[in-house]
């Protein structure tokens, strides 16, 4: 975002000794602090200027609004370097260090999902989604702990890794709940779209689901992708249509047309917009319990 004031005047490089060489803040004019934003994001301000800019930040909505975008962009610069891989021994040294680190608690006994499952297992579903009604439930310590864990998770979910080497992700709370008992994580694979993959995260009972699509080419004009669900002995039913972005990534909220415990197949086809009642295209990606082809 460009800003008025002195920015336009400095759009081109000044000759040596011209405006920017004057003392900042005390000369005939004051260089706008917003113009320090790029150098600050790069970490190129000296200590005094950095301190002054950090005093300015809380008072300036403009700078705060632009700063995170600048920092995210600067963080990308490392991607321009030829990648270098550390020696295998570095990982082993890290393991040894954290196991002997006095500042660390003892090693855990289980995975995060198991740890959270242990906490959430004793909590009624209402802990995750408040139940309506005036009745006040007696709150148990385990419920408090689960609430704290979920609140932590939801808080963390506000920060999304936009530039992740692993592509798009489901909402953290959906991913977590899908990995807990009663949830499902289904990986859709196939040869219809080489290099593409999709994962369906379904929370306990099927009340919420998200489809994460990675590497599916944007469909031609007038075409959409359509998600299908099958239950034993029944024709496939539509789970909705979706698109992907220019990178082939998609994150789609899904309403299951089939009870979760009866889902026997999931498939993705490409169809004419705005979607069709029964699949006509080939199954680009699909899932079945035993990996068998999905029957239409």
């Amino acid at each position, binding site marked *: 975002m460009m800003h008025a004031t002195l920015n336009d005047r400095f*759009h081109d490089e000044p000759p040596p000794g011209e405006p920017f060489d004057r003392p900042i803040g005390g000369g005939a004019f004051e260089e706008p602090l917003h*113009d320090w934003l790029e150098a600050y994001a790069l970490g190129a301000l000296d200590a005094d200027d950095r301190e002054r800019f950090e005093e300015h930040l809380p008072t300036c909505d403009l700078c705060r609004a632009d700063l995170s975008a600048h920092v995210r962009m600067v963080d990308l610069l490392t991607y321009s*370097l030829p*990648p270098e891989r550390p020696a295998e021994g570095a990982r082993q040294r890290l393991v040894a260090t954290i196991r002997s680190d006095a500042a660390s608690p003892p090693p855990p006994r289980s995975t995060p999902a198991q740890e959270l499952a242990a906490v959430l297992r004793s909590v009624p579903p209402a802990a995750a989604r408040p139940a309506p009604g005036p009745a006040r439930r007696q709150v148990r310590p385990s419920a408090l702990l689960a609430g704290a864990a979920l609140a932590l998770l939801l808080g963390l979910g506000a920060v999304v890794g936009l530039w992740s080497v692993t592509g798009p992700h489901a909402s953290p709370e959906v991913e977590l709940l899908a990995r807990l008992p009663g949830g499902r994580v289904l990986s859709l694979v196939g040869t219809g779209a080489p290099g593409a993959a999709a994962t369906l995260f379904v929370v306990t009972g099927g009340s919420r689901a998200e489809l994460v699509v990675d590497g599916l080419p944007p469909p031609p004009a007038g075409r959409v992708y359509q998600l299908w669900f099958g239950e034993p002995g029944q024709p496939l039913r539509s789970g909705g249509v979706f698109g992907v972005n220019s*990178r082939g990534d998609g994150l789609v909220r899904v309403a299951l047309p089939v009870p979760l415990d009866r889902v026997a197949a999931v498939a993705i086809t490409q169809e004419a917009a705005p979607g069709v009642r029964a699949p006509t295209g080939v199954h680009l990606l699909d899932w079945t319990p035993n990996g068998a082809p999905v029957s239409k």
Partner: protein
Amino acid sequence: MGDSGHDSAADGTADDLRSASDEMLLLGIRMRDETALLALYDRYSELVFTLAARMLDDREAAEGLLEEVFLRCWRGAASSDRAGRTVPGWLLGQARSRAIELRRERAPGDRSPARAVVREADSPDATESAGASGDGQARPAADDPERTLVVRALAELSPPQREAIELAYFDGLTQAEVAARLGLSIGTVKVRLRDGVRRLRALLGPTLDGHRAGAGGR
């Protein structure tokens, strides 16, 4: 990345977490699950090490720095003081700050580049160049879409803008130090940095903003 020589007890579960989001892994780290830390390490160690090796020009020192960064993450810093940065952004920020400290401890007053400024952005074949593995073996990097985009964006800058940005970011120089190094006025360097970063943001911003926003069905 890192598929051999891993700790046997942790490997199976670290593999299980390969599809977990960064936030899930941080949650696991907060719960003291070392498999979550190793999954995060497997995901970003190469990126962090690449920056550290570039800034320090010393693989052994870079591996030590890599361990420091992930140890700091293990102790909980990544969960508490990220200030809105992405997880890889926080890791890179930690690595860069520590690398600058190490450079200044190693050679006080020496602000010379750790390595020659990367010039591959000038080459149309830049994204086809090879990186180095832990064994010193070259490996193709052409299939990394992030790298392709960033290299192309950097190639859009004027050479003086690119040089100033690379000296500031990869060599940890302040704008006054960049000016001294290049024999330019600080005003000239400020303008090059400012305009270069703005140009990069204009080029990469739509990609960043659209990376997740383009999905339909929401």
